[in-house]
């Protein structure tokens, strides 16, 4: 997962938001942009003597995966990137529940999704830059 892919999805999110016609997809693209940013920030992840270079390598090592990858990632964000947790969870939650509102998403919700994505990105990019410098 890369910052580039996160920004790629973010650019689509911005384009969709401009027209106001696809607010449901603004939510989805914001979430999938945030997902790339947080994974890039968290990995490589060192646990005891093992270093996991990606979520795909980390996930099978977990003992409790009964709730699936998204929930496992959410817990990882809580543990490793707590500052971004509430914003990331907002995006995840809305991408999961949009169908209960028949995918009708208000402009306010779409704007908030963009804002939450900006928060996640700023926390991840800042960390990525610090990682590069060190």
């Amino acid at each position, binding site marked *: 997962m890369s910052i580039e892919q996160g920004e790629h999805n973010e650019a689509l999110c911005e384009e969709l938001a401009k027209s106001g016609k696809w607010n449901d997809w603004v939510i989805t693209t914001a979430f999938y942009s945030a997902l790339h940013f947080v994974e890039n920030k968290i990995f490589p992840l060192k646990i005891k003597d093992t270093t996991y270079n990606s979520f795909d390598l980390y996930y099978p090592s977990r003992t409790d995966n009964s*709730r699936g990858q998204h*929930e496992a990632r*959410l817990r990882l964000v809580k543990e490793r990137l707590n500052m971004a*947790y*509430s914003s990331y*969870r907002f995006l995840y939650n809305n991408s999961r*529940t949009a*169908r*209960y509102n*028949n995918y009708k998403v208000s402009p306010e919700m779409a704007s908030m999704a963009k804002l939450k994505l900006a928060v996640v990105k700023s926390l991840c990019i800042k960390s990525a830059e610090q990682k590069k410098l060190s």
Partner: protein
Amino acid sequence: MPIKNKTKQTKTKVIMSQSHTEIVRNEIIPCVKESDWESPKAGEEHYSTNQLIAAYEAGIAKGISGMQKLVQEKFNANIDKTASDTGRLISKLQEYGVNPTSARLKVISWDQFEVLFILPEKEYLDEKFDFVYNFVGDLENSTREEFYSISFKFLPETEDTDIQKIMSDGFTLQHKSLVK
């Protein structure tokens, strides 16, 4: 096909050979305390396959083995916990000035549960909801046990909110404290 999936498929077939409504009505709902969760009314019953599997795993098969009985007892205890954990969250939401109109329980399996809160969009979009999400994450982590986990989701209510779809996804039982 992996053995695990095959077993699950066999269980599903057993369930499918019975009346869905009867299984849930006779096996899941009796485990639910009326003071905690409100059951769907006649004609509103929608049960997901997962709920039916959960019903099976809670011990609906004839000739309940000792193990299955233990699972059923654990399921009963877990249902009580869902009511209490949801109640804690309702209180916390109200402390933050968030007033959910409904909290609906979905039984994913005998040890996994999900609750969907429906609430005014304005309250959901308020910046204080960040605190709610942090509290919810802590609550989910602190209550998680080897054979119990609960997760919470939130739905801003709009004129397009589709209760039938929500129920169809398995969120059938309503927390009593929010039923008007």
